[in-house]
């Protein structure tokens, strides 16, 4: 009878190796979870910035690994880290947007976003045809603050429960509920206004 193939090491075994100084072992964690982290990040930050943000999530995970307690699965811990990194990304982005006064001009991909904005501003009749749906959504989400943006993305667009979103963002459930309610109303109004202006008629 052929010997049983060795089982792949568990996450906590790999983490122990990394903490013991074998940093190469971290690559196994990257290999296991890069798709999961990418799936979280790609729906929350601009597409062209997503690889950089995923990179940052893993760097943060490596640096914070000594603080990880295996009371909950590593995958959950990493997901929380990914959500918070996206939140930090938007907070930083909005801050620099406010301080530079150059709007989106300095941001990679900003030109495309400005085109969307300009099309809506002019109530271009073919705006719906010219852009992808997610580009219009990004433009609409850009009208919200970073906290509202994250809350509405997680709960309203991705279907996370209030408890899950509160845990990931480090807020109370009441705060998440309030932000989602406010942001959803604002988002609907932005889309409805753009429709009323002739974008979709």
């Amino acid at each position: 009878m052929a010997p049983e193939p060795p089982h792949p090491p568990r996450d906590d075994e790999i983490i122990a190796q990394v903490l013991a100084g074998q940093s190469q072992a971290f690559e196994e964690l990257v290999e296991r979870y890069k798709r999961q982290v990418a799936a979280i990040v790609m729906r929350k930050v601009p597409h062209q910035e997503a690889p950089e943000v995923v990179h940052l999530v893993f760097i943060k995970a490596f640096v914070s690994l000594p603080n990880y307690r295996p009371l909950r699965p590593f995958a959950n811990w990493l997901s929380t880290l990914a959500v918070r990194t996206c939140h930090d990304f938007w907070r930083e982005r909005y801050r620099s947007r406010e301080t530079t006064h150059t709007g989106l001009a300095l941001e990679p991909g900003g030109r495309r976003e400005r085109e969307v904005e300009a099309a809506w501003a002019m109530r271009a009749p073919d705006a719906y045809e010219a852009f992808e749906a997610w580009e219009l959504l990004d433009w609409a989400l850009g009208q919200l603050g970073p906290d509202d943006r994250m809350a509405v993305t997680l709960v309203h667009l991705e279907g996370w429960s209030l408890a899950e979103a509160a845990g990931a963002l480090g807020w109370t459930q009441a705060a998440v509920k309030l932000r989602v309610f406010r942001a959803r109303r604002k988002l609907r109004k932005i889309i409805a206004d753009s429709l009323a202006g002739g974008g979709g008629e």
Partner: protein
Amino acid sequence: MKPVSGKPEAIDGFLRKAHDSRPELELSQGWQAGLMREINALALRPRQAAARDEPAAAFTRLLFRFAGAGALVAAGLLVYAHFYGPDLDQQAAGVILEQPASPVPLERLLWS
């Protein structure tokens, strides 16, 4: 992309569909190699990172900062006393400045 009516339910549906239609993210081997290079570089200085993160080390750092600031104030007061202080204070400050390594006799300090 098809237009959407202005009803809230339709708008919500449109938003969710738009969110789900985002393009997939492909992470290349080059991306992973770059990440591991940075991880390995970070791993070369684990002690520094650990020392930075430890709360006790943060408290010690704070203590040293206070000590440093206190020493600067003391030195400033000493120089001030040497140049602008009353007679005996000036003498005591002068002795301390001339012989900083040896302790000032107690009587001099008492006189000052």
